[in-house]
């Protein structure tokens, strides 16, 4: 059974069918990628998988359980964490607090815990701090813990997004254009980090623009064009697929 499965997934905004009967499987332990030209519906597919949108029809299955239309916080609790294409950090909070918030699903303290601060609550808070620190260290941000998220460089902000996602201890990590806006050297570092995360046993599903980045990293690649899946396979298979070439470069006039 695939870890995540999109089953004839469809969403319509007014007259536009942004994602059209897409079938897709993300196998456990692999790095799967979803690529396609701008506006192909990649991010929308992510938003469907994480509960931000409810599908018009079709299903999202996680470990065989139907999660379509469930609230994002619930889906995060099941073990899916994501990053955002247009970085959505908690800008006016510190780097450390951003990551601590990522730990939310894996901790319990509520209002009364906040006020009473019993020893169990203090212990939980220490654990959160420890986990947050580990997540920052993984992404190489531990020295910046005290900075405001807004003051980080663009590449660092992208890394912080991943650190925050890692803090929620997911089994499945969804990365929405993780390399966007990064220079070559930063991309190289990012590939290393993503591979390291995979070695930790996580499954990764990413949306990306940069073909080179995707092809070097992924086990499987699916291609979306105008909301429809036009190809699915290993990077080698997809690269030579005529439909994919046409979608990216335009059809040749014969």
């Amino acid at each position, binding site marked *: 059974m695939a870890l995540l499965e999109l089953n004839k997934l469809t969403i319509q905004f007014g007259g536009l069918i942004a994602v059209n009967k897409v079938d897709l499987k993300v196998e456990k332990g692999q790095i799967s990628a979803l690529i396609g030209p701008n506006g192909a519906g990649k991010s929308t597919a992510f938003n469907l998988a994480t509960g*931000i949108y409810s599908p018009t029809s079709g299903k999202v299955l996680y470990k065989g359980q139907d999660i379509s239309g469930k609230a994002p916080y619930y889906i995060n609790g099941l073990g899916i964490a994501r990053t*955002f294409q247009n970085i959505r950090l908690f800008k006016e909070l510190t780097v450390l607090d951003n990551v601590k918030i990522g730990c939310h699903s894996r901790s319990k303290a509520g209002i009364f815990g*906040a006020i009473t601060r019993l020893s169990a609550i203090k212990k939980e808070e220490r654990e959160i701090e*420890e986990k947050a*620190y580990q997540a920052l260290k993984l992404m190489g941000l531990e020295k910046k813990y005290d900075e405001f998220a807004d003051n980080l460089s663009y590449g660092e902000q992208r890394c912080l997004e991943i650190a925050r996602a890692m803090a929620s201890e997911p089994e499945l990590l969804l990365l929405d254009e993780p390399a966007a806006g990064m220079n070559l050297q930063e991309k190289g570092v990012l590939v290393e980090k993503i591979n390291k995360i995979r070695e930790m046993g996580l499954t990764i599903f990413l949306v990306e623009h940069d073909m080179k980045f995707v092809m070097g990293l992924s086990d499987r690649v699916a291609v979306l064009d105008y909301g429809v899946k036009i190809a699915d396979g290993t990077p080698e298979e997809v690269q030579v697929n005529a439909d994919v070439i046409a979608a990216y470069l335009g059809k040749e006039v014969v």
Partner: protein
Amino acid sequence: MTLLNGLLPPYIESIAITVGIYIIMALGLNLITGVTGQLSLGHAAYMSIGAYASAIVSLQLGMPFIFALLAGGIAAGIFGLIIGYPTLRLTGDYLAIATLGFGEIVKSLLFNMPIVGGAMGLAGIPYKSTLTVTFILVVIVIWMMLRVERSRFGRALLAIREDDIAAECYGINTSLYKVKMFVLGTFIAGIGGALWAHKIMVLQPRDFGFMKSIEILNMVVLGGLGSIPGTVLGAIVLTSIPEVLRFSSDYRMLLYGALLVIMMRFRPNGLLGGVDVTKLVKKSIKSITGSNFTNKEKKKVKGGD
């Protein structure tokens, strides 16, 4: 428990009590608007619910003040739940209007209900909000707010303020958290209202209009949305300065309006916004005693190394 009472000249003592009540009110609003970013324009309505409920407990049931206080807080909290549960799903500006509408409804009902005296209001409420009682409650509320701010719950509220969609994607049930927070904030407003009732001793619906909500909002904005020391400072400044300078209320309102515009334009984070007061205090302690708090904190973070 009459430690502080009578230490100050009566006039100053009266102002000090008023300042204390406004600190409590403003801290409740700061939780809602400053920390969580949900603009409430009906804070005075919850204050009035607390005031009337506590007054009824005192007048009709003759119960001790502590019960009147709790009744005020709980009544306001219940209304906070009733109005917050549906409206907090709305985006910021809709919420602002809904809370404002609710405030006007409450005022209109108070005007029309005989049980609370209608337009005449309630009179003969016993004087119970002494300086000592007010001071103790101010300390408790500040202490509670400081604890809430630095907790998992408080961080979730901050996350909602910063980006509610991202917060939701990181496991925070934003609707539920907003409701819980709103109930806590309105509970505190109710306590403030109960104190107010037992200081002024007379309640009239028109004391709790939109302008009262704006007055409280101004304290939070002046000090810095989300900053506890800022809110306390804002409440002190805006309560005591008009008293001392004896502004006519017309000019006072004009000043409040101008203050909102100017603060948003030039210092949207308030006088103390972006200033970490605890850090400043630690730094000054360090410079005085030579002990190293900040490093200790760092070590704690790096403990997992």
